């Protein structure tokens, strides 16, 4: 007998990365059919999962280790120690990207010069447009908003491996 769908699988770095790829593909299909708001919503989630996975990787989690609610809460709470200006919210893509980049500085192998800053500026550009509350909206995004979110998501998928 199967567990209910929402109880299947584990929150791990591996799962987050695989889910990011899955949602990115879903978003591309929606975009091709001009279902732009849904596409933006999923492009945003794809990036969110990738930056969260990058944070936990940079914080020393093993790929298959389960990430608990307490782990996520603890991560958000070290924002000031890592030099961030504000505590990231649950879906704050810019904040989680900043956490990921700040945590990487404490690792043996740092990101190449400028790469971390690029992650943060691109995630922030996305977060100026995207919110998880888009799921409640029936509004039509502007063409430039769709293009920008798409190009940011493309960049993250292209450069995702470099973040780990």
């Amino acid at each position, binding site marked *: 007998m199967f567990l209910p769908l929402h109880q299947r699988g584990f929150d791990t770095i591996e799962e987050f990365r695989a889910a990011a790829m899955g949602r990115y593909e879903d978003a591309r299909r929606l975009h091709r059919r001009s279902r732009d708001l849904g596409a933006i919503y999923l492009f945003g989630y794809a990036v969110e999962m990738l930056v969260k996975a990058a944070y936990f990787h940079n914080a020393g989690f093993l790929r298959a280790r389960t990430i608990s609610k307490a782990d996520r809460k603890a991560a958000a709470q070290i924002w000031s120690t890592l*030099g961030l200006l504000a505590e990231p*919210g649950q879906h*704050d893509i810019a904040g989680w990207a900043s956490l990921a980049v*700040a945590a990487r500085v404490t690792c043996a192998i740092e990101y190449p010069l400028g790469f971390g800053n*690029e992650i943060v*500026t691109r995630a*922030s*550009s996305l*977060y100026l447009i995207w919110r998880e509350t888009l799921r409640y909206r029936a509004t039509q995004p502007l063409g430039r908003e769709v293009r920008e979110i798409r190009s940011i998501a493309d960049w993250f998928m292209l450069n995702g491996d470099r973040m780990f």
Partner: protein
Amino acid sequence: MPLIRNGTTKASQTLALQQELASELRDPRSAGEPTVYENRIAQTDRFHVVVIWDKWASLPLQARSRVILDTYEDVFPEKTGKITIAMGLRKPEAVSMGFLPYAIVPVIQGAEEPIRQKILDAMRGEGAWDGGHGTELRFRTIDEAEQSFARLQVAVPGPFWTIAQELATIPEL
């Protein structure tokens, strides 16, 4: 026929922003823009820099970041390569990212028109802007808000001023 003049080029615009930011970094003023937040992370000797400035409007975030990094390289060469995050935001963007959680909210209901105008002028003098929710005056810390509050009390004395804190949404982590 409309009169169309040559616009300022992006390069000269960028240079102008760089020069203005450099002058602020060399000789910081007590109020006004740009506002520069520089966080040094002691353990790693790295810096996060956020510059809040409405003059960023015409540049995308990555170009703003470049302006900040280039300016820092010029003004503080010893910090070159040590800046992990360099972000330029306009005030409404900074609010939307949760960087300015404290607000001074004027209590103007019932106030007569000349007083209302004085209140709004005083707020603009402190750096307020007209946003989607009316005139907004925001700060990153309670200390900054209280200092501004004291100046506003001098400019327009009376029970017109309150400090409010925007609370983050309750996380469902």
